[in-house]
């Protein structure tokens, strides 16, 4: 699909606009993390600001297992089992943290989860058992081959993911590169997790979660033990956050405390959820896609797509060398503002969303359409076709 569009007549423009496949893989696993964050925060209304703890726990579990540092789980364990272990570990962690945290509400809940995650962050960052230099992160040793997504034990159903260590596959006349395979395999895991969470949300359990968000007192009065429901939802959410972390570790083959346990990682998930639509499970995926697209479009330093190389090619030398003010050229301005400073635009977009689109992308669309898009789209299409 990507290849077709890039090689079309508007190829240059398409390269500039479309996210690259590598980006899409990171969009997938991070979107799963953002979804798990939305699962607890968007549906029960408890802002879990320390959600990065579970993401990090999952990521570190996989990398440490590959390093042979986790008891009972050796480096040869199939990746799918590792993902499960990562998820369960995060869920156990969530039960421990949630047991004390859910006595609090609102800002206090956000703060205590933030506190817990920062304790873990500092601990992992400085724990020399993790690696010789824990501050810089740990990598999967070279001896371990690619992590395989598929049914453990059945070779034919396994495909390794990873940018460098992934499989490449030829099916008939279609060929997939390593990244392409990772795209589908990571996407597959994320899709399964999404459907699992979707199922939970639409079960009676999910109804209680929403009841807690809307009016916890009333949910209690009706006879639900809200504490148990919240704790259960927190553990489920952490499980999927752990799986997302495991996917990150499997694809990147290295983890660093800054990219996993740090509280700004949870902030990124928050960003994706708000932009995509708080309280819509699929929203974070679109939010993250939007977020990454903005980042990639506005701040690519040169290789691949983005606005910067496109402007460089289109504007021409004369325009670029024009002096604007005090020795500052147009080209210089573009470089200054577009090279690697996407966070600025993401921040501005985020503020605008909070102010003017509080329901997010998907939430707003749903309001316009009058319900989940999937349900109403056929009717709309039929109306136009007739």
């Amino acid at each position, binding site marked *: 699909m990507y290849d077709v569009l890039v090689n079309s007549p508007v190829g240059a423009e398409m390269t500039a606009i479309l996210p690259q496949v590598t980006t899409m893989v990171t969009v997938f696993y991070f979107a799963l993390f953002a979804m798990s964050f939305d699962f607890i925060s968007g549906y029960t209304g408890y802002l879990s600001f320390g959600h990065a703890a579970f993401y990090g726990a999952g990521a570190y579990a996989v990398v440490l297992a590959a390093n042979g540092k986790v008891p009972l789980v050796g480096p040869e364990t199939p990746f799918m089992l590792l993902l499960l272990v990562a998820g369960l570990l995060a869920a156990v962690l969530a039960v421990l943290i949630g047991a004390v945290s859910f006595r609090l509400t609102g800002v206090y809940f956000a*703060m205590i989860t933030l506190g817990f995650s*920062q304790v873990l962050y500092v601990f992992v960052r400085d724990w020399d058992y993790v690696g010789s230099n824990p501050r810089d992160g740990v990598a999967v040793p070279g001896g371990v081959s690619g992590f395989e997504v598929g049914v453990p034990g059945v070779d034919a159903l396994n495909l390794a993911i990873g940018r460098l260590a992934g499989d490449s596959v030829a099916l008939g006349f279609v060929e997939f590169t390593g990244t392409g395979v990772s795209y589908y395999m990571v996407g597959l895991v994320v899709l399964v997790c999404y459907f699992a969470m979707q199922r939970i949300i639409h079960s009676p359990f999910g109804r209680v979660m929403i009841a807690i968000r809307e009016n916890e007192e009333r949910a209690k009065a009706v006879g639900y033990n809200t504490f148990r429901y919240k704790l259960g939802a927190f553990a489920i959410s952490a499980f999927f956050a752990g799986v997302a972390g495991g996917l990150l570790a499997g694809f990147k083959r290295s983890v660093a405390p800054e990219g996993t346990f740090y*509280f700004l990682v949870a902030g990124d998930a928050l960003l994706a959820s708000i932009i995509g639509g708080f309280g819509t499970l699929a929203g974070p995926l679109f939010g993250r896609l939007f977020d990454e697209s903005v980042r990639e479009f506005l701040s690519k330093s040169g290789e691949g797509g983005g606005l910067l190389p496109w402007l460089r090619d289109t504007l021409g030398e004369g325009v670029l060398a024009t002096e604007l003010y005090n020795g500052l050229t147009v080209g210089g301005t573009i470089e200054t503002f577009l090279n690697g400073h996407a966070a600025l635009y993401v921040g501005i977009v985020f503020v605008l969303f909070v102010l003017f689109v509080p329901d997010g992308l998907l939430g707003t669309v749903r309001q316009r359409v009058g319900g989940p898009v999937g349900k109403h789209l056929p009717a709309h299409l039929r109306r136009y076709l007739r």
Partner: protein
Amino acid sequence: MTLTALLLTTLFEPITLASATALDATVPLVGFFEALVDFLAPETLASVVVNGLAKAALYIMLAAGLTLIFGLMGVLNFAHGSLTMIGAYLGGLVMVLLVGSATGSLGRLALFFVAIVVVFGLLIALGGVLEVGLIRRLYDRPPIYQILLTFGVTLTLDELARIVVAFYGLQPISDWQAALATKPAILTQSLPLGPINASGLAGFQILAGVVTVAGIYGFLTQTRYGLYIRAGSEDTEMAQALGIDVRRTFTVVFALGAGIAGIAGVFLMWDPRWGASVPLAAETLLPAFVVVIVGGLGTFRGTVVAGLLVGLVDASMTWWFQNAVNFTGLPQMTIFLILVLMLIVKPQGIFGVEEVGGH
């Protein structure tokens, strides 16, 4: 490289060598009880306390603005750290620009106060703009949106700062040596105070902390706006009913909070453990949150007590790390453990009331 220097370069962003700490750790790992005996020796304890008070002064300055804003408006300002960071850069800028005209330590100290006044003014303006332009629109929404909005503001401000810093080439490395170098000689020396050695900077910081606390306390108890703020913290609706223009009070408080954050930044700029850098925003935000929440959201008295608590614990844990415990993150981790324990034991904080803020 001494162990102290190693600690300071790893604990905080790479900064200059530690000349400010009175503790010079050369002792290798010893048994716990021996270390405890060492720790309880009067000289050690005294210098730990002095260091702790200096840290406490900084923590209180960092958290005071946050407390004022939360106490009255119920807005947990995530952009507070960014305001501190901007204050640090602006303060450094003023100092670097003015330092050529200063001779001697006293001249430089005087210029430092000029820098404080300038930064205070600029950040009050910035805070006012933020409140009127953005935050005011959100008072009728659930409080979660204010957290979200200020979080977005943080991202934007940090990245703007990063662009400016990169554009003017202010820092090839993460600390800003030029600003640090404007510190007068008095403050870099260590002053012998009886048996203990206190650095001049620590004394200066303690003094500044006392002045800040006294100033804010005076403002809250002696001025009309202080009265409004205290009334508004108790019951916003009643205050409004009694004819206080709460909207304007909100603007004033937010601007003041931003100004205080800026002042704290100017002090951090001179402290070799911090220095002016973009990551300062996140690094100062978290301790400020801890202090505010441990003290009880919205009570100034609580903030002062919690600042002292956190500062002293930080200083003693730093000593323990330097002398007995082989774990770099010990002081930082203890700070967050204090937060977690306090929230478990007494969620409303030391002096907190059940409910604060609210509209």
